[in-house]
Structure formats: structure tokens, C-alpha cells
């Protein structure tokens, strides 16, 4: 059995699970690698096992699909076709003489290293949230919309009693519904997109009746929980001293600016905010895969332009879990055939390819509708911290642009330190480019998410080496 080819799938979300199950069913051995303690990733995030949730589906949508994936995964693991490596944070994938070495660090501490070899890889690394800055966004109590959802689904906790859910994008609906169902008073759902914009996209929406029904279902549940939706509105400021106490929201005008006189204050202890998603492309970038803008470029078989490397799910473009599933399925099928020396016949997955096309069009329609207010940066005062790690303010970024002539993210970073902190610019980059008036480009980080903290910290301060060189210092394991 050892000479059967081995496929490494990185990411155990919808895309990675679908790829794993499809490839294993077609005769290759799979090593499924994910940073989390359990399969599921974002959309299918499961409560920690020790919480012994008897009804996790209460927090979920499309539970059936998850059950099918979970059962198939378990069966392949039992049969020895799939090895599932949990708590493995991949920081680099190397390609040498046509074979791959996946380098990972173990556990939340990320100290002990392991290497996994494979004949091919599927990158199913998903994405993370984009949040644009506004005054007060660094206050405790302000969390990303997905973060609130992840803490709810994974740890069964909520950040407070009264929440405002704000920003833009399809994620805000399940987040508001989830918080309300979990007993949080959702004072408002503040969405900068306009309902009218949806009507202009009716063709792509009508082609996805299931997806439209899903949206309607959320709307009905919002109504039931008495959550009011403020469309064409935005949060202009979060207030509080050491903790969030209220937000000010305002209506938007036709140009995406704030309509004067419409400001109102909503008391809350939680703001769950997000402005869309960005793909995780670091592993693909270090492998030398071509990107289309910010996403990994793939062909009809989900192959990147680097031989032996497939990519699927939100790493190849933000499109939601259903699209991630079909892409993962196709990637797994294609990889299985090619790894066993064959040439795949796309007819074999024609149904999946069709739904991929439809879901892709649907995602593009949503993407065109959900947009942050065009003039969001007008609300960002000079003293607003933009880079949360390095505490670089909007004023400093503006000065670098206006007085020092910085015209791209890299130069702004060198001049201001924005993006040089622990998160390596993942969080601040969209805000910085918006303020600087330049394009968001792939950042070419030397190591993928999550970078070993010790390695990063060492670059910043010699003093932090202690944490890294004395792993037995007493941290829980």
C-alpha cells in the first residue's frame, strides 16, 4: 500500500474536505492537514469536543452536507486511506524534484516542527476577513463578524449582551441570526449595500433559487428576533474608554458618503464588523503559483500553474461554502486521476462543473452588490489607529503619502511600520491601501499563516527569544 501516491490537502473546510473525500474515493492516499483541532474550518466549525454539544446543528446551516462529509472522512480514516493531521499549522510547502514537503508547527504553541511529504498538494486554505478601519475600531468589544461567529460556533461563547452587526457582505446575516439565537440582543444589522442593487442582478440571483431562499430564510429569522436592518448605513465611530459602549451609525448618500444629520447613537457592548473576505494565498505564493489579483489562479481542473499543485475554495476567490465544496470535489477528482498516471475526463464531473459555474456567477453578483461605502476613508480621523499591531495612525499613513510620496503598500510600510507587526499586515493592508489611494496587492510573505510567533517576535525584539528558546517554560501543552 505504500506505493500508492500521496496527496496532501491543506485546509479542512468545505473545499479541503470535499477534495479529500473525492481523492480518497478514487484511490489515492490523502494526508489532510489543518491548523484546528477538528475538521470543519470556518463554515462547518464545530464546538470543542469537550463541550459535548448535543445539538451543534442549532448553530449551523446545511448540516446534512456536513454530516455526509464527516461520515465519508471518518470512513476513509478508518480504512487507512486518509490521515487527518489536526493542530498542524503549515508555514511552508516546498517543491523539489516534483515532490513536496509540507512544513508544519504543532499545536497552538507552534513550537515543535514536523514535515510531511507528498506527491501533490491541494491548497484549500480558505480566507480571512477584511475589516476597514474607523474611529474606535480597536476598542475591546469590537470584533470581526466572522470572529464572533467562530467564537460562537467553536467555543459556544458570545462577547456581550447587546450587539450591533455591521459592515457589508453575506456573512453579516448568519452572524446576526447566530448571535440573536444565542441570546444576544442584536440592536441593529447595519449594511452599507442598498437593497436596490440586488434587483439589478436578478438574473444571477434567479439562477440560484436555493441561495435566494437561504437569504430569505435569514431575513425571516432576523424578523423573528426583531433585528432591524439599516441598509445603506454605516458605522462611523465606536465609542468607549476601555471597552465599547456605543456606536454611531449614519445613512449613506448616493456617492457613498455620510448623509449629514442622519447620525444616531446605538448603545451596545459588542460590534461585530466585517467588509468581506480575502483569500489566504501565502502557501501558493511561496510555491510560485500565479495569482489573479489576490486569488490563486486555477484552470478548469482547479490546477494552479505549478505542476502538482491544485487549489480550491476561497483561496481561489471568495464565493462561499457551496462553491468551495464543488471546487474541492473537482480538485480531488482531478488530482486522483493525474496522480495515478491518467488524464481526467471532465465529463466525469460535469454536474459539479456546472454548479461551479452557476455558484461562481452568483458569487460575482453578490460581490458587485456588497461593497463598503465608496468614501469610507473620509470617516477615518488622523488619530485613528490603522495598523493595530504597530499602532500606526491614519495621520502617519497620510503624511507618508502626501509628504514623502509613498505610492504603494510596500513604501508606506517601510516609512510607517504599518503592516510590520505580528499579523504581517493581513489586517491593516486593506485600510492602508484605501488611505494611500493605491491597489491591494499580494504581499509575498516569506512564510505562510500562521507564522511561528517566536520567529516573528525575534525580528522585532531580541527580548522575546526567551519564549522560543525555552519551550519548557511552563506553557500548557
Amino acid at each position: 500500500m505504500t506505493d500508492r501516491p500521496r496527496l496532501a490537502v491543506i485546509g479542512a473546510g468545505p473545499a479541503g474536505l470535499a477534495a479529500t473525500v473525492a481523492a480518497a474515493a478514487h484511490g489515492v492516499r490523502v494526508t489532510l492537514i489543518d491548523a484546528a483541532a477538528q475538521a470543519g474550518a470556518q463554515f462547518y466549525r464545530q464546538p470543542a469536543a469537550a463541550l459535548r454539544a448535543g445539538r451543534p446543528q442549532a448553530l449551523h446551516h446545511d448540516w446534512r452536507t456536513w454530516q455526509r462529509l464527516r461520515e465519508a472522512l471518518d470512513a476513509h480514516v478508518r480504512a487507512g486511506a486518509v490521515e487527518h493531521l489536526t493542530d498542524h499549522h503549515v508555514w511552508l510547502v516546498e517543491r523539489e524534484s516534483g515532490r513536496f514537503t509540507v512544513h508544519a508547527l504543532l499545536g497552538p504553541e507552534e513550537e515543535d516542527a514536523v514535515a510531511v511529504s507528498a506527491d501533490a498538494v491541494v491548497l484549500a486554505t480558505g480566507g480571512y476577513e477584511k475589516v476597514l478601519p474607523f474611529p474606535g475600531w480597536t476598542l475591546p468589544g469590537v470584533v470581526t463578524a466572522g470572529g464572533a461567529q467562530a467564537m460562537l460556533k467553536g467555543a459556544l461563547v458570545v462577547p456581550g449582551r447587546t450587539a450591533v452587526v455591521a459592515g457589508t457582505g453575506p456573512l453579516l446575516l448568519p452572524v446576526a441570526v447566530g448571535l440573536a439565537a444565542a441570546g444576544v440582543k442584536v440592536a441593529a444589522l447595519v449594511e452599507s449595500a442598498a437593497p436596490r442593487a440586488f434587483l439589478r442582478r436578478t438574473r444571477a440571483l434567479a439562477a440560484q433559487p436555493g441561495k435566494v431562499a437561504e437569504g430569505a430564510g435569514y431575513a425571516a429569522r432576523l424578523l423573528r428576533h426583531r433585528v432591524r436592518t439599516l441598509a445603506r448605513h454605516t458605522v462611523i465611530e465606536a465609542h468607549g474608554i476601555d471597552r465599547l459602549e456605543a456606536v454611531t451609525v449614519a445613512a449613506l448618500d448616493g456617492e457613498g458618503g455620510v448623509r449629514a444629520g442622519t447620525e444616531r447613537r446605538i448603545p451596545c457592548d459588542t460590534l461585530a464588523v466585517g467588509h468581506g473576505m480575502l483569500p489566504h494565498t501565502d502557501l501558493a505564493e511561496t510555491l510560485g503559483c500565479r495569482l489573479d489579483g489576490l486569488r490563486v489562479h486555477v484552470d478548469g481542473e482547479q490546477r494552479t500553474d505549478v505542476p502538482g499543485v491544485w487549489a480550491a475554495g476561497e483561496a481561489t476567490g471568495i464565493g462561499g461554502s457551496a462553491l468551495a465544496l464543488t471546487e474541492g470535489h473537482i480538485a480531488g477528482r482531478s488530482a486522483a486521476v493525474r496522480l495515478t498516471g491518467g488524464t481526467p475526463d471532465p465529463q466525469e464531473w460535469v454536474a459539479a462543473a456546472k454548479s461551479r459555474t452557476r455558484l461562481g456567477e452568483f458569487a460575482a453578483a453578490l460581490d458587485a452588490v456588497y461593497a463598503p461605502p465608496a468614501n469610507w476613508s473620509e470617516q477615518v480621523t488622523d488619530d485613528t489607529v490603522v495598523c493595530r499591531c504597530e499602532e500606526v495612525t491614519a495621520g502617519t499613513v497620510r503624511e507618508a503619502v502626501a509628504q514623502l510620496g509613498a505610492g504603494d503598500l510596500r513604501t508606506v510600510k517601510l516609512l510607517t511600520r504599518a503592516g510590520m507587526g505580528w499579523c504581517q499586515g493581513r489586517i491593516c493592508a486593506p485600510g492602508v491601501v484605501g488611505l494611500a489611494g493605491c491597489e491591494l496587492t499580494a504581499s509575498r510573505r516569506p512564510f505562510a499563516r500562521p507564522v511561528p510567533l517566536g520567529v516573528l517576535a525575534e525580528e522585532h525584539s531580541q527580548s522575546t527569544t526567551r519564549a522560543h528558546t525555552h519551550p519548557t517554560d511552563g506553557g500548557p501543552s
Partner: protein
Amino acid sequence: MSSPLDLAGARPGPAFTVTFDGRDIEALPGQTVAAALWAAGITSWRTTRGEGRPRGVFCGIGVCFDCLVTVNDRPGQRACLLPLQPGDAIRTQEGTGHDD
């Protein structure tokens, strides 16, 4: 009023005690540091290096590093990822978490 634990029908094992800046708080088996602190009504456990501003969870998934915390004298751990063990001593992390 429903709670997330009720909603998901959770039946965790008995709670155990950990400390936050010396004071006892309860944690459930399976909870991360951030989860137990949120459940205890605590939303910040770090102050920034520059301005000394309070921070806690932001992204919730290990990407932003805003939730850094000191646990059992080890600074720089992501509270949103780290599971708790009985007796763990959680401390607010000031700056890098090192006394300098």
C-alpha cells in the same frame, strides 16, 4: 434568555478553576483562554506596547494576534487558540509581555 451552551445542547464536564490576574474564574473543559474570559465577562487582556491600550479578541481565528496573553508565565500566546487546563494562571500581557 437562551445561552449558546443551551442552544447547542452542551453537557460539558465539571467546570474547573483558573486564575486571571490572580482572581479565580471558572472555565469549562474544551474552552480556550478567550472563551473562558468572555464567559467571565472579560474582554481585554493585553495592553499595547506603544500607547498601553487594552485589547482582546478581534479576528477569533488566530490571524490578527490582537488577543496575545500570558499564560503560566509564557507571554505571546493567542488566547483564541489556546485551550485551558485546570489551574492555568492567565495574566494580562503588557507590551511584549517581558519585563523590559
